[in-house]
């Protein structure tokens, strides 16, 4: 580009500065010099540069059209279960990739075109607008207050106290109906949080195999998850029941068990604890064989299974409840009752 054939009157020097004058004020060197003069862009003075900008904008808009066609073509042509390898992302769904990029591109080019148009071809002369106080002028305020007084007086609300008081009463009471209607959102808690479906004689069923557990199935160092006999995944109440009844079983050397009651409630060193964390109810699933610690992966509460599952770190407030277990006549592990205390997070009525 050369500036030779730009008409003289288009050159910045030939145009008078935009009103703003930068005078060094003798009195105040920090005075506001006013809006700086407008500086011309190349597009303002060179029509060829402006043409080029026009072509760039038109190109972007055309590209957008092509990308939308590409979107439709991808939608029709690419099978929805096709995976492709894209470096460095890896294997991804081809249709999602194509649709997203064409849609994104089609939108982005519209935006880029519009912004380029605004920045290079539309006027970039800065204009000043006046602000007006948000507050109303005193006369307006006085008028409004007078009007309000007039209206209040005409309503006689202040004078006829009986009307006022009964109206407030009625307005205050009627929302109660709405509150009442919320009552049936759920049943009252009762003692539901205190009980699970564990009871005396229920066999401990391995969560993975769906078979009753024998003591010999539980090896030292392993962590087994169990559910009560009779609770099936297809049961309507399965989710709600397993949320309380989930059990984890580990085998310890009996002389490693520090807590006396834990030893009593165990069977040959096999102990069964609630799997539901006493903090906010996540299922505990990380077991460290060497230390017999279990860790809740949600908030890192750590319990010592060799010491009554008491809390040794983290935000949980009390030990995991233990389930008393024994062996049935057929040699299967069985519960000797329900948990003696509520499982899961603490609540006001827990005590």
């Amino acid at each position, binding site marked *: 580009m050369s500036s030779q054939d730009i008409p003289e009157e288009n050159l910045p020097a030939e145009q008078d500065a935009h009103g703003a004058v*930068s005078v060094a004020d003798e009195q105040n*060197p*920090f005075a*506001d*010099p*006013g*809006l*700086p003069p407008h500086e011309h862009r190349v597009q303002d003075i060179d029509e060829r540069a402006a043409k080029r900008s026009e072509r760039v904008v038109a190109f972007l808009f055309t590209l957008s059209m092509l990308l939308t066609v590409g979107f439709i073509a991808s939608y029709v042509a690419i099978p929805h*279960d096709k995976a492709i390898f894209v470096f460095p992302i890896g294997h991804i769904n081809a249709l*999602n*990739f*194509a*649709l*997203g*990029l064409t*849609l*994104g591109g089609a*939108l982005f080019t*519209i*935006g880029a075109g519009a*912004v380029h148009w*605004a920045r290079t071809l*539309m*006027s*970039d002369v*800065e*204009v*000043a*607008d*006046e*602000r007006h*106080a*948000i507050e109303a002028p005193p006369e307006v305020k006085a008028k409004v207050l007078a009007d309000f007084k007039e209206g209040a007086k005409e309503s006689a609300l202040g004078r006829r106290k009986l009307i006022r008081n009964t109206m407030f009463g009625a307005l205050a009471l009627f929302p109660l109906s709405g509150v009442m209607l*919320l009552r049936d*959102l759920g*049943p*009252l*808690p009762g003692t*539901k*949080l205190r009980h699970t479906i564990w009871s005396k004689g229920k066999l401990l069923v391995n969560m993975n195999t769906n078979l009753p557990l024998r003591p010999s199935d539980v090896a030292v160092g392993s962590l087994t998850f169990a559910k009560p006999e009779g609770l099936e*995944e*297809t049961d*309507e109440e399965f989710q709600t029941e*397993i*949320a*309380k009844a989930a059990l984890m079983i580990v085998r310890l050397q009996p002389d490693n068990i520090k807590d006396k009651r834990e030893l009593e409630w165990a069977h040959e060193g096999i102990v069964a604890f609630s799997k539901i964390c006493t*903090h*906010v*109810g*996540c*299922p505990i*699933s990380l077991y460290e064989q060497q230390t017999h610690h279990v860790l809740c*992966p949600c908030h*890192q509460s750590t319990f010592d299974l060799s010491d009554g599952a008491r809390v040794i770190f*983290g*935000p949980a*407030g009390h030990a995991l409840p233990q389930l008393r277990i024994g062996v049935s006549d057929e040699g299967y592990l069985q519960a000797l009752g329900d948990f003696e205390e509520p499982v899961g*997070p603490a*609540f*006001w009525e827990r005590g």
Partner: protein
Amino acid sequence: MSTNENNERRDKAPAGEKIADWADGRLGIYSLAKSNMRKIFPDHWSFMLGEVCLYSFIIIILTGVYLTLFFHPSMNEVTYHGSYVPLQGQLMSEAFNSTMHISFDVRGGLLIRQIHHWAALIFLAAMFVHMMRVFFTGAFRKPREVNWLFGFLLFVLGMFTGFTGYSLPDDLLSGTGVRFMEGAVLSVPIVGTYLSFFLFGGEFPGGDFVARFYSIHILLLPGIMLGLVVGHLILVFYHKHTQFAGPGKTNNNVVGMPLLPVYMAKAGGFFFLVFGVIAAVAAIASINPIWAMGPYRPDMVSTGAQPDWYMGFSEGLIRFMPGWEINFWGHTLVLGVFIPLIIFPLVLVAIAVYPFIESWVTGDKREHHILDRPRNVPTRTAFGAAWISWYFVLLVGGGNDIWATHFHLSINSITWAVRVGFFVVPVLVFIATKRVCLGLQRRDKDKVLHGRESGIIKRLPHGEFVEIHEPLSQDALHTLTAHEQYEPAAIGATVDANGVERKVKGSQKLRAKLSEAYYGEESQIPKPTVEEYKEITSGHGHH
């Protein structure tokens, strides 16, 4: 003017004008356009942050409506028969099943799901940054306090809309989050158990929460938010935009480009840019891959479970809190969960009420349309930085397991560091930020009085080397000295001329103390005066 003439002119008018006439006769659009069509909007990169919020909100609504066409908000158990082989034959809720259907069997469904989720993350992040922009530049001052609150409410409601939204697919990760919420609700003294039963329609998880969250997520909260967004925008128009100090910019004007055409093209174009970028992100970056997590089961969990980022600070609160429980008279006070539940809103409220505290301290009742540079208000800037650091300490606490596994650190030491950092880090950041601000103020003062360092070294005849300082332009001199400086509010004499003691209220004393902390000698560098400038530049005091 006769009616005939009028009619003739109207007949000749172009179609667009005729339509506009029709609308004006019924809606009065000409008067509306008169004051708004050429409305001036100032230009600054930070003013687009709010636009990112608005546009991502619109994108969320558009994609959300599409998703409702396919999503079944039901917790009935069904067996999966879709095209994702690893889960075939598994039991899952209809909510999960339909989300799988959207992701694998509706063409483009996965894309819209991912745009929806990515846009939600960006919406919240943009609101956070936008709010910080408004905070650090003092754009919340009179007359914009109400709009600050609207924005704050949008942020809080956005968090809960996000939470109820990502809980809808009923997958293993989000179900864990809902369980956490149940535990938190249970910790509320006296009524917690009842609240939980009413929320879930009985015991957790029950069969109701997806349907209930659905109506909250798609109707209740977005409806309120839409109203707030409209109000927010009306106020932006009504107050006119703020601007930074500079030549020609005063508290009584607004300098920039007109709405039609420049701002309309830029802002309208920017909507497409934001949408385009989010669509491209959704094409290449997977988000919330529910098929990898599987349907929710209350007895299962995956490691590294994290909420969406904006819920992370509440996660931090719950993770670092010691497990305090108090048992008395057959009741349990679950402080280990309840205290975080109380601090959670307080963290947010701390920043929300700040504008009102500041205006009480300054006692300034004037309108402010010129933005502050953060350095010129050191105490506010330090408070904001301390708040952000507090928030980030909690975010680290919320991801303590991720930090531990990625940086091979002990989870226990991270948790302890967060416990200490919760109290210590904001204080340190406050002190450091204030000092940095004061340092920057000194630098500005130096520049005004001694000019800009030119980088040119001059050797004097006697061998000394000096750097040449170039005087600033008048524009720069004005910009650097345009800010106002408050005087600390003094209580004044408490004993009058007759020796009668005046009662000073506690609140007055507190205000005077705060004012001293804000604007005392320790808290701001007096800006250069004309006299100082003249003395230095007049020649004999050349430095």
